[in-house]
């Protein structure tokens, strides 16, 4: 991209944000596969609208299309913050259909992998063009220092997007929030269990503070 085009795009983005103060902020939920993004999206949506966003599963790439829940009004300290939640497929650099053949027949596994690749490409496109902030969900029982996580956080930072890191699955014995804080000390890390609903008050306080 040329310097002039980049300058024009930067000004355009800044202008868009300036004039969209009253619009709901589009908050993308990003992270690796199986971090609990859809469980979190569903928890937020159910708590504030009564409806879920999508199906949850232990099989990677259950979410294969970005899904949006619009106008989620979160009330904190008498103030209402309105966001559109965008639940995205887990970002990865590889998808092998054979990973799914234990759970389903080959034809379904191939279809799942094709949909997953399209979904990840779409999620990357949304990240460049269409979100105002990011909730980055990590499984706190897993090592957070992976190339995909490092790359994604770098891409988000390069877009000047506000980002909150959610250390999910603190209900698991092997969970380590500190490992995530140490991996990405430049960002606020909020511990939670989306499945159990642990620490959701801090989750909503942080969303209101960062994206309100």
């Amino acid at each position, binding site marked *: *991209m040329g*310097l002039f085009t*980049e*300058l024009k795009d*930067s000004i355009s983005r800044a202008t868009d944000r300036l004039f969209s103060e009253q619009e709901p902020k589009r908050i993308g939920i990003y992270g690796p596969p199986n971090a609990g993004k859809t469980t979190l999206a569903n928890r937020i949506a159910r708590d504030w609208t009564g409806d879920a966003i999508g199906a949850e599963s232990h099989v990677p790439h259950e979410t294969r299309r970005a899904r949006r829940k619009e106008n989620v009004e979160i009330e904190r300290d008498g103030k209402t913050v309105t966001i559109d939640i965008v639940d995205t497929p887990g*970002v*990865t*650099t*590889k*998808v*092998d*259909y054979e990973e799914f053949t234990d759970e389903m027949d080959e034809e379904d596994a*191939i279809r799942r*992998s*094709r949909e997953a*690749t*399209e979904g*990840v*490409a779409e999620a*990357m*496109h949304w*990240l*460049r063009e269409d979100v105002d902030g990011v909730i980055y969900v990590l499984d706190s029982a897993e090592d957070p220092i992976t*190339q995909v996580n*490092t*790359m994604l956080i*770098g*891409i988000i*930072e*390069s*877009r*000047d997007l506000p980002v909150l890191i959610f250390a999910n699955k603190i209900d698991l014995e092997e969970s380590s929030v500190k490992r995530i804080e140490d991996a990405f000390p430049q960002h606020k890390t909020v511990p939670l269990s989306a499945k159990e609903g642990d620490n959701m008050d801090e989750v909503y306080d942080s969303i209101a503070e960062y994206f309100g």
Partner: protein
Amino acid sequence: MPKATNADDPDAPDGVQIDLISGERMDGMATMEKIRMILDGVHDGNIVILEEGLTPDEESRLIEVTMAEISPDEFNGIEIETYPKSDTRDSSLLGRIMGGEEAEAKLTVIGPANQIETLHKDETLISALVSRN
């Protein structure tokens, strides 16, 4: 496909090709040219090593294009490893507008997901095992 596994062609060289691409060569290339060069190499079963890394935008597009090219039984994606980013990076908006979003001089290794496995990575060393199939 990988030269090392080309059993149909006994004259094919037995080994894994490593393409070491200088920063100077990458300097004059557009984003999609860089991505095409990387993925063409990886599709051929090569390990591509970039003397200088990619910018975040280029990394984002590399993931997007890689996803578009994944195909069952033929290509299941890439492994990519690079050294951590420098703390001294100029991350201000003005800095990037003025050209600050240059790729940092950090070595990056990219290879076919079914052939490359990272054994160890820290701030100064990437150790990778490359299989021939």
